């Protein structure tokens, strides 16, 4: 009797252990945070709320491209090549007709972002787990051909979260190589290269996405020329960030929107920052009819931060955003950034950055940056990383 009790006790313990192990290893579950896959750094509440299945995440919708290039571009061809590459990677893509019907039904005209209502409707009506939002920053067929794309994967639910984001800026003369054998003269060849470069870090399981944190690579020459950081920032705090529209003082059309995308991408990589989806912010700005004359006022910042439940508002001015003209040209990027905190409604960070593609180039074009996208990416990455490290310095 005692043996049988002991045996059944062991069996029960074994069964419990098995159930526990299986419970831990339930296939098809993936914890996704705003910064990518879960890790020890993930916010527990976020991982619980945003637990999505692999199967659902691998079924995505691809919005039509947002054209920020300021010129005509083969948007359909580019989108087709993106779809094909994602299919090759194992994603299931929502049928074109179903997407068109959804967009007509919900009257979706803005394709540069998605708000909560539309994201939820998209998820419920079509069954997709996420939507890919792509912006074309540059398309130039003249020699050397150039293309710059930014894409982000946003969850299709009532509070959309950026699951993955990346961008590329390619130029035909990026890697001329020995005897210029590496030059790309055909824009189609460059276009074919773009999706692979863009989606290099994107997998259906999102298992490759890493939280880069503030350890992001910094290059000294791309540091802001001068900056201010408020000592009242709490390095322990998790910040919810709203990237508001930038002001465009440059001659380049849409430079402000492009700069906002750069900031969303780079800030998403910081461990203590959760960046809100641009479509959600846009919807709130429209709801409160906020019109900014020369930047956001403190009252407006208060309203928008409270409604979005965010701590920091990023805004600024784009002074120059020029791409290289011709093979000898050099890109120029010049911007200033103001970060307003909810606590005390004060400026938490201000900086001014400007660079040319030829900065720090002394021998044989070594280190030359060919596109404004690539340079702005470096500059914004450096500002963002400094912000992270500055917060940590403040802690000490």
């Amino acid at each position, binding site marked *: 009797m005692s043996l049988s009790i002991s045996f059944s006790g062991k069996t029960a313990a074994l069964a419990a252990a098995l159930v526990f192990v299986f419970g831990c290893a339930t296939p098809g579950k993936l914890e996704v945070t705003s910064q990518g896959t879960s890790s020890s750094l993930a916010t527990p509440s976020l991982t619980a709320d945003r637990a999505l299945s692999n199967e659902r995440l691998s079924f995505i919708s691809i919005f039509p491209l947002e054209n920020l290039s300021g010129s005509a571009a083969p948007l359909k061809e580019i989108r087709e090549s993106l779809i094909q590459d994602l299919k090759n990677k194992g994603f299931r893509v929502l049928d074109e007709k179903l997407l068109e019907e959804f967009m007509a039904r919900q009257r979706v005209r803005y394709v540069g972002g998605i708000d909560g209502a539309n994201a939820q409707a998209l998820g419920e009506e079509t069954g997709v787990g996420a939507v890919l939002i792509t912006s074309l920053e540059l398309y130039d067929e003249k020699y050397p051909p150039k293309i710059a794309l930014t894409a982000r994967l946003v969850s299709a639910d009532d509070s959309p979260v950026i699951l993955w984001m990346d961008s590329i800026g390619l130029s035909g003369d990026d890697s001329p190589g020995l005897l210029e054998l590496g030059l790309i003269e055909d824009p189609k060849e460059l276009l074919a290269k773009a999706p692979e470069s863009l989606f290099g870090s994107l997998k259906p399981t999102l298992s490759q996405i890493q939280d880069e944190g503030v350890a992001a690579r910094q290059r000294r020459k791309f540091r802001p*020329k*001068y*900056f*201010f950081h408020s000592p009242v920032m709490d390095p322990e705090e998790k910040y919810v960030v709203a990237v508001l529209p930038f002001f465009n*003082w440059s001659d380049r059309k849409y430079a402000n929107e492009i700069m906002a995308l750069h900031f969303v991408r780079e800030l998403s990589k910081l461990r203590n920052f959760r960046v809100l989806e641009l479509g959600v912010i846009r919807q709130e700005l429209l709801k409160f009819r906020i019109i*900014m*004359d*020369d*930047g*956001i*006022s*403190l*009252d*407006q*910042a208060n309203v928008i931060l409270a409604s979005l439940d965010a701590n920091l508002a990023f*805004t600024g*001015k784009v*002074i120059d955003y020029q791409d290289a003209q011709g093979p000898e040209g050099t890109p120029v990027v*010049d911007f*200033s950034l*103001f970060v*307003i905190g909810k606590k005390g409604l*004060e*400026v938490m960070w*201000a*900086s*001014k950055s*400007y660079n040319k593609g030829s900065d720090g180039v002394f021998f044989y074009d070594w280190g030359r940056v060919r596109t404004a996208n690539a340079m702005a990416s470096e500059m914004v990455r450096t500002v963002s990383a400094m912000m992270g490290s500055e917060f940590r310095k403040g802690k000490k």
Partner: protein
Amino acid sequence: MKLRLSLLTAVFLSLMACAAPTRYHDANMDFGGIQTVAVIPFQNLTSQKDAGERVRDVFMNMLLASGGVYVLPPGEVARGISRAQLAEPSAPSVEEAQKLGNVLTVDAVITGVLREYGEVRSGTAASNVISLSLKMIETKTGKVVWAASSTKGGISTTDRLFGGGGQPMNDITEEAVSELIHQLFR
């Protein structure tokens, strides 16, 4: 003797011209009491569109980065200008400066005039130049407590002799603004 005297006078006059004072500091003003300032849009006397805003952007960021005073963000300044209903935002009257100070709760307002910005040419030589003057108005009294100007860049003798395009616009703007901030805190 006459020749020596006239030569000496000429040298003295030229030295005096070089050392002409370009700043004013109110001797009775306690600058330590100024903690928050609003930089209002600069008057742009150049032919280059948006040059005033470009220089103002640099000045605001450098002043904030200096840590000497807190600078209100430009959007808040725009709201203040709108609320105070300034007739000419870049050149406020004493009453307007005081009104703006009350609306924005700032200790001082900084105004500026951009006189030159961009490329200048002389023969075959070309170079960038900037000429900027600033004024600080205390909002409590409406008095100008500090004024200074700075000119940087231009065509040097080397440029005339050997050519060359001078320094980039951003660099000389930074130099001029840095000099003005240095004068403010001196």
